[in-house]
């Protein structure tokens, strides 16, 4: 079955360092992958999208990579700040081309 895995353990990072989050998937060939941020008690907020023919995408301090051979996406936050603390979810497009299959997210904690 199709499966998306994100590290269920919280990731603790010192302020100023680069945080790297991982999204692995199996039994699927997505056309694109999206990353969202979710704060406690709030809905997810879209951050970045990367297509299958793109290796890397950047937006300010954020960088996403997509390796279709490894079936993996990495999400990087450089110069991390305590305000970056949140849960980050990855999502893949489903066969319908607009529905998403979601990972459970990784909680990121940036320590001052």
């Amino acid at each position, binding site marked *: 079955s199709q499966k998306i895995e994100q590290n*269920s353990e919280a990731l603790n990072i010192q302020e100023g360092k680069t945080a790297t989050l991982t999204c692995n998937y199996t039994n699927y060939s997505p056309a694109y992958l999206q990353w969202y941020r979710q704060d406690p*008690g709030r809905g997810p*907020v879209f951050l970045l999208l990367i*297509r299958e023919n793109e290796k890397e995408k950047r937006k300010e301090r954020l960088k996403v990579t997509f390796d279709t051979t490894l079936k993996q996406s990495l999400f990087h936050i450089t110069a991390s700040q305590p305000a970056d603390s949140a849960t980050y979810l990855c999502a893949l497009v489903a066969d319908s081309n*607009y529905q998403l299959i979601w990972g*459970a997210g990784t909680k990121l904690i940036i320590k001052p």
Partner: protein
Amino acid sequence: DAMVIQNPRYQVTQFGKPVTLSCSQTLNHNVMYWYQQKSSQAPKLLFHYYDKDFNNEADTPDNFQSRRPNTSFCFLDIRSPGLGDAAMYLCATSRPDRDGQPQHFGDGTRLSIL
């Protein structure tokens, strides 16, 4: 600002007492989704509307129903809530005429069952 608004933010109901959650959007998006999310879990799609076409997920319990009276509004009805239905319910919209368009979420309704 265009947005997705869910009401109420918090809802408490009694076991077995019907409850309705509402969602409105000013984005004019074709598709509206209802998700259920429990703590530390992925959002679970319950159903979605593409315009007026209703699409139910195979594993969505019959206890859950939805209505979309117009483009802007969508409702989630839980006919007889059980303790296992306590969760965050998220409404989202998207405009799938372009590949990869993100989903836009409301801030959810936290449902508690007494």
